């Protein structure tokens, strides 16, 4: 990939803290104007990776490039990136206006121009008229907006967001997610978001890098990540996935024929076959919503199996059924939306379960 298509480039980045190997050979490219997320459980190295871009964290080997320029030896204050911190890091002794204008101190523009820029930045984040407020009198959501305005006023090439929404309550968080997406489209700056919330990553990102133990497990757009995870670890972190043991019977260049307990013999398209860590036995995986409980006796499906309901979990708009498909050892989960007028089934009921070949992913 030419550097023109890369706003950020990680080239085999390693980071050690003493004996602890925090980043284990990260190689990835982030495109200009992209909303990119680093997703993973705590301790997976996602924040460390973000901080290597900002310059708060040195790297042990490899290279980090921002807009084609190697950042090694470039201190944090000279990098073309700005960051929104998890704690927001609003300077408590400065007013809202002084906080937002902090980065303009060395700007040669006149103070009237700077004041206008501050006003515009505050308006952009929905805090028009908050200039003179004391920063310690702000709510969490407002602090967040001030932090955003303060970072964006410098028109950075990349905006780094370190779990910026984790301190907000659910409603506020969902609102800020939407606002951040709009803001990113409006300013066109590359956003890199660190989050441990899979839903947040799916909702907001153009592409997501899923990280485990200092490595990128998969880097893809949200849909690919959800539909075609490349290992069993990824779907365990993003949403829910059912797994059933499979036995490989035959394989060709186009498809693999497997025998799946409960499903019988199926041909899995080569596109849906993922190579897994050696030593793991072959497994097919499928999302809970790709199965359907066939309520109507006349309903047809591509494939069908009989099953017994073992558990019913009612969510209001959805119901989860944990069912045991005849001939399988472990129950699988089916999620059904509660269409008006449809009854919720009881534990022990016998049901027909419909499924389709395309939804199966084979890990081998």
């Amino acid at each position, binding site marked *: 990939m030419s550097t023109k298509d890369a706003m950020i480039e990680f080239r085999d980045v390693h980071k050690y803290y003493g004996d602890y190997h925090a980043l284990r050979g990260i190689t990835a490219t982030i495109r200009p104007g992209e909303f990119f997320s680093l997703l993973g459980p705590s301790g997976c190295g996602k924040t460390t990776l973000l901080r290597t871009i*900002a*310059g*708060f964290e040195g790297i042990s080997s490899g290279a980090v490039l921002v807009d084609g320029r190697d950042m090694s030896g470039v*201190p*944090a*204050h*000279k990098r073309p*990136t*700005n*960051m929104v*911190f*998890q*704690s927001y*890091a609003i*300077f*408590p*002794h400065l007013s809202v206006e002084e906080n937002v204008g*902090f*980065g303009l*101190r*060395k700007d040669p523009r006149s103070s009237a121009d700077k004041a206008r820029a501050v006003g515009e930045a505050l308006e952009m984040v929905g805090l028009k008229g908050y200039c003179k407020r004391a920063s*310690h009198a702000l709510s969490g959501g407002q602090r967040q907006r001030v932090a955003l305005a*303060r*970072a964006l006023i*410098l028109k950075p090439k990349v905006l780094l967001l370190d779990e910026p929404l984790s301190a907000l309550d659910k409603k506020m968080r969902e609102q800020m997610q939407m606002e951040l997406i709009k803001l990113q489209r409006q300013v066109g700056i590359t956003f890199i978001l660190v989050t441990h919330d899979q839903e947040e990553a799916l909702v907001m990102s153009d592409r997501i890098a899923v990280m485990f133990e200092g490595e990128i497990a998969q880097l893809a757009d949200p849909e690919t990540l959800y539909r075609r995870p490349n290992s069993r670890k990824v779907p365990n972190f993003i949403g829910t996935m059912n797994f059933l043991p499979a036995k490989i019977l035959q394989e060709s260049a186009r498809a693999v024929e497997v025998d799946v307990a409960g499903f019988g013999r199926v041909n899995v398209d080569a596109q849906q076959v993922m190579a897994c860590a050696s030593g793991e036995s072959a497994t097919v995986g499928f999302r809970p919503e790709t199965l359907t409980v066939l309520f109507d006796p006349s309903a047809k499906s591509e494939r069908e199996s009989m099953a017994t309901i073992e558990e019913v979990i009612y969510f209001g708009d959805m119901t989860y059924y944990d069912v045991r498909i005849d001939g399988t050892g472990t129950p699988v989960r089916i999620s059904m939306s509660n269409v008006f007028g449809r009854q919720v089934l009881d534990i022990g009921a016998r049901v027909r379960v419909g499924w389709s070949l395309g939804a199966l992913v084979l890990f081998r």
Partner: protein
Amino acid sequence: MKVHALRSYTIAYLVFLYAPIILLPLFAFNDSKVIAFPLSGFTTTWFITMWKDQSLWTALKNSLVISISVAVFSTTFGLFASRAATRFEFPAKGAALGLIMLPLVLPEMIVAMSMLVVLLAIGVPLSIFTIILGHVLLCTPFSTAILTSAFQSLDQSLEEAAMDLGETPLSTVWLIVLPLVMPGIISSVLICFTISLDEFIMSYFLGGNEPVLSTYIFGQFRFPARVPAIMALGTILVCLSITLLAIAEYFRRRGIAKSGGKDTGGFL
């Protein structure tokens, strides 16, 4: 019943602690050379006597030079120590900090004696300078403790944010760190000043022939006629100490409120 007993105990305890201090102004304004009841009349003579005492002025001048130097040096050392303690990990960190705090628990007499022996052995003449050395040793732990709490309530990402926004590490200290720990610095300066001002043992051991306020007062007690004037001086000193400590506490609390931290108790 039990509450009553506890309450009277508390009151008795506080009276025992603070009543002697109330006697100070009482006798300072008493028109008699004898420190005893009954009081004989109101006078301000003792304050005038005190004011005209030349050796008192010498002692006061020495004390001020010492206390101001000690306040500045101890706070500077405390700044470095507490910054290192809260921001960095280094080998033997615990031991280094322990050594800094040690004078708090060591018997002052022992420290003063050993310093005297060493200073004499290496041939340093006893002077105001040696008193300052001793006092800095005593005050640095206080300064370190106060400033550590100031630095602890300072979110590290504030510094990172300043650098992220284009400030060098040095200008970050100037624009962010110092303003936010300033209340701690002021409170440290005032407390070190107060401690140094009324410190006796170090001043007595390491002062040689230089009188300071505390050793001067002690010396005056040999002459009963001068005691009422000392009472007058004591009255002024008590008022001064209370004022200084109150200011120090005010700045400490304001600092905590400013950085949005929670008050975990202080010296007052």
